[in-house]
């Protein structure tokens, strides 16, 4: 059964090329100058313009107000990605803890209230969400950027499922030893959940970092722009220019894709487990 099968490898190599060549092209082309790209097309080999291009993209004061640099956008994307992931973990862990470890009235009802949020993606209620944010005065703020994205129950369900798989004996033992709910949570449950938290952090970080529509609507002030917003910006500037800044667009794309790709590739074990695993 373990013979080498050339056909399987050919398909996998083709698949790898299909998935990875566009990324390679983006990385390589970003190191050439705009004029070279305009004349010769895309590149699969490195050029010598990398330092200049990335320096420009990261530090040039761009936009109408001159307030925004690539570095600002990178920071904002990081704030959004990490803020969202941390917020999600804290909120959903607390909620799942209450749902699994407490006996109280309306528990079932509340579970349903939270569960319903899984059904409707943000995109279908985007207009009223925007109106709510604007009437709360939260446009152009990190709160407005992050908190509304937390209104979905994915994390709560991950943790709920995980807590249910934790052996009951732990709680029984802890109670015999006189531990209250806080002590049990902090000394036993949180240390037990570390792997789960890491997996959810990775998934949520990527999700937050990659947000597009919501940041686009929420932020009109350029100092709150994320990299995704910058990508829209750079394409709009193009219309009518003779030689578009291909190199800068690619450099921006590389900046936007590298952090989440690195996180997913380096932590792929945890990430895949968090995404797919059923029983533990």
């Amino acid at each position: 059964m373990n013979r080498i099968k050339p056909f399987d490898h050919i398909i996998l190599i083709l698949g790898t090329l299909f998935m990875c060549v566009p990324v390679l092209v983006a990385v390589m082309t970003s190191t050439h100058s705009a004029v070279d790209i305009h004349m010769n097309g895309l590149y699969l080999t490195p050029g010598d313009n990398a330092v200049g291009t990335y320096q420009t993209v990261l530090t040039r004061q761009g936009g109408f107000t001159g307030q925004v640099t690539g570095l600002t956008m990178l920071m904002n994307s990081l704030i959004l990605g990490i803020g969202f992931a941390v917020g999600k973990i804290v909120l959903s862990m607390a909620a799942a803890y209450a749902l699994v470890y407490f006996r109280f009235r309306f528990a079932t009802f509340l579970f349903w209230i939270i569960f319903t949020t899984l059904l409707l993606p943000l995109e279908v209620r985007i207009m009223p969400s925007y109106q709510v944010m604007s009437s709360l005065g939260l446009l152009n703020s990190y709160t407005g950027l992050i908190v509304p994205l937390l209104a979905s129950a994915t994390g709560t369900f991950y943790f709920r499922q995980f807590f249910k798989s934790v052996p009951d004996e732990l709680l029984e033992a802890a109670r015999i030893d006189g531990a209250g709910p806080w002590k049990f949570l902090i000394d036993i449950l949180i240390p037990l959940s570390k792997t789960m938290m890491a997996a959810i952090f990775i998934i949520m970080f990527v999700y937050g970092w990659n947000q597009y529509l919501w940041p686009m609507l929420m932020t009109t002030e350029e100092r709150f722009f994320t990299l995704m917003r910058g990508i829209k910006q750079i394409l709009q500037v193009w219309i009518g220019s003779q030689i578009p800044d291909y190199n800068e667009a690619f450099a921006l794309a590389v900046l936007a894709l590298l952090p989440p790709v690195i996180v997913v590739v380096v932590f792929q074990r945890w990430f895949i487990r968090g995404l797919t695993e059923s029983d533990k």
Partner: protein
Amino acid sequence: MRDATHHPAPPGLIRRWLSRPGPAPEPAKRVQFDQPLLPWLFLAPQLAVIFVFFYWPSVQAITSSFYIEDPFGFGSTFVGIDNYKDALGSREYQRIAGFTALFTVLVTAFSLGLGLLFAVKADKVIRGRTSYRTALIAVYAIAPPVAGLMGMMLFDQHIGPFVRLAAWFGYDMKVGINYWDTAFAMILVSVWKQVPYNFIFFLSGLQSIPASVREASVIDCRNGFTRFRTAILPLLAPTAFFLLIINITYALFDTFAVIDVMVKDKPANNPMTLVYKVYNDGFRGNDIGGSAAQSVILMVIVLVLTLIQFRWLERRVHYG
């Protein structure tokens, strides 16, 4: 075959939450804390966020779908279901709905097919397994707008290799101007972006099939393809069905950024999907009532999809 039902495919985690109609009637734990107020404290932040940013906007979408709002903000008029009639009756809406259906079918079919193909092959090979896996999942992390930007470059009038390839065949490809050229580019980029997700789930689905079942199937059937079709594929069915719903939702909603980047603010003669039209009418056209009605139509579609998933999964649980 019976054995299979005892080894559900890995997406079980998500599937089970979705399929379970609420918490089991018995409490989650045999022992629980008996404190009336503390759980509310733990739940408060989550509930607050959900009420303010989920229920409030959702209710508002439903309410304002029955009104026509003055574009300058001078009040609104109740119009009953006129917004729905207008939307569903308009030729443009029907055309976009038709394109959305086609787009969804193609994106779902190709990304599921490729994901499955790569997963089956990656499951078979021994040498280079990890490298293939890494290469095939990396794109999962790339944001749709970034994928859209890269697509724009590959289909650029001056530098795009696809345009050059088409020219070599004597075809003048104009993405962003020609309707079907743009549609092709959008579909390709959307498929590319979604393949890794399907790959991950199909691969773990395959790896959870017990070795005993595989060995038995090898003994029973020597033809590799027939074996795959009759023994392995049925075991992957739950994974595939779960992914089908996820992929439809992806094609309907998550491709927004791909479309927005690729039409570059000029939706005029370019293809768009229903969710893009909600945004376009609401934010550009200032037609708040009409946009809300379209939102509600989309909500209904998502609800129906989810209910289908529940029903199907329940059946499977009972008779599987």
